[in-house]
């Protein structure tokens, strides 16, 4: 298997002297799903920004598909709160990436209409984000990411502000999406169950500066029913234990 993302010894020191990451090394295979879990402020968001090419690591390098990144590539980034633009309608939000890339109007429309339909958002195309529930807003964010047909999807606590039921529904949705399209995904989360349910590989980071403490393989995941299986609970316990060792 080839590597979609390869983080080699990356460290990040912000200009104000805050050291966010230290010697982070791990890789994500093509089509694999990876969960990153770690205490608040340990540099998870920073890491995603580096993967997406928005920030540069202070030392070390990131290879995407084997080559170093210099500017944002075909990766989609989904943020928790500031992902959608409140001043744009659902349609405009989903369309934005295509518009910026200069995709032809007719083609934009075709792609967006199909996505809105697939995600059950077609009745809300002219609504503004504030008029939608939290779960629907995140579906719009996912639609916008998918519109670009990305090879890599980076998600920063995408479901953390949702209620438990909506959250589970969207987790299932994401899992099905991963199975269907085999997009490489990196998901940052605070939630152990979510990390185990959605990550074939679970990377545990230490408190700031974030270092990789442990990488747990989770071969059994991939099915919606996994949530109710014994293996799931055992894996959760394993992850919890590893985390409690570092905090």
């Amino acid at each position, binding site marked *: 298997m080839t590597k979609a993302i390869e983080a080699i010894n990356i460290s990040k020191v912000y200009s104000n002297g805050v050291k966010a990451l230290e010697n982070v090394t791990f890789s994500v295979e093509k089509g694999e799903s990876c969960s990153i879990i770690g205490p608040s402020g340990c540099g998870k968001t920073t890491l995603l*920004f580096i993967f*997406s*090419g*928005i920030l540069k690591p202070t030392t070390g390098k990131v290879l995407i598909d084997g080559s170093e990144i210099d500017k*944002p590539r075909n*990766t*989609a*980034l989904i*943020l928790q*709160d*500031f*992902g959608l*633009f*409140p*001043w*744009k309608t659902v349609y405009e939000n989903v369309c*934005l*990436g295509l518009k*910026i*890339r200069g995709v032809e109007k007719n083609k934009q429309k075709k792609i967006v209409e199909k996505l809105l339909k697939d995600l059950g958002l077609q009745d809300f195309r002219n609504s*503004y*984000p*504030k008029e939608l529930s939290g779960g629907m807003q995140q579906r719009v964010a996912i639609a*916008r990411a998918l519109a*670009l047909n990305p090879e890599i999807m*980076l998600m920063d606590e995408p479901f953390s502000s949702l209620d438990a039921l909506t959250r589970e529904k969207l987790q299932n949705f994401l899992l099905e999406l991963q199975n269907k399209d085999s997009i490489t995904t990196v998901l940052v989360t605070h939630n152990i169950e979510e990390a185990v349910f959605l990550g074939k590989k679970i990377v545990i980071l230490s408190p700031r500066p974030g270092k990789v403490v442990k990488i747990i393989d989770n071969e059994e995941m991939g099915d919606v029913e996994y949530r109710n299986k014994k293996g799931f609970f055992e894996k959760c316990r394993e992850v919890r234990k590893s985390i409690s060792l570092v905090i």
Partner: protein
Amino acid sequence: MSGSEKKHKLSYLIAALILIIVWNAVSCLINSPAIPNPYVVFLSFTQQLKQDLPQHFLISAYRVIYSILLALSLAIPIGLSAHEKRIDSFVAPFIYLLYPIPHIVFLPLIILFFGIGDLSKIILIALIVFFQILVTTRDAARSVNEYYIYSLLSLGATKKDIYKHVVFPFVLPKILTALRIGVGTAIAVLFFAESFATNEGLGHLIVDSWDRADYPSLYAGIVSMALLGFILYSILEFVEKRVCRWM
């Protein structure tokens, strides 16, 4: 028109009626030619409409609208560019030093350079409105959450896209609010600017009728000036309603 909008319009009508009734009562109580009753003013107003009132009105409107457009066309680009930290650190000191000055004191200077014609009046009003818009626009442009920008960058955005899709739409409602306050100021300064060195404009009409103790005509001028303010304000409200639907 929706029900609530009808109610909205009705409440304006009621307020206008109450004001007229109070005015009438005051004029009856005081019984001085300096406070004619609404009916007399109305008659004088319609009388003057057939004479040169429309001319004065149009000239005033032309002066104030040009001033506002001039102020906007300078304040918005400069204010938006404050989003760039490097530009802001250059511009900010100038704003801090120049904003607190009562700009009306520059009148002699303006007249010295631009003569006593329309241009000077327009520049005086524009100068004052310019700073009001500039300060608001700058504050707003600096307060754009950087996560919005990261989110856009991840879609492959250029600098121009950031202004077009994030900074400007975010700042626009604040500009409109500043403009609403600015319109009030602009008309006040308009009155001042028209009270000398001109034979045209509502300000001139008011001051001239005042000199001649022609109270009905004086009030017709006042009513026209109020009307000018009301029209500009209504236009802004209309624009705001369309533009700020997302808020």
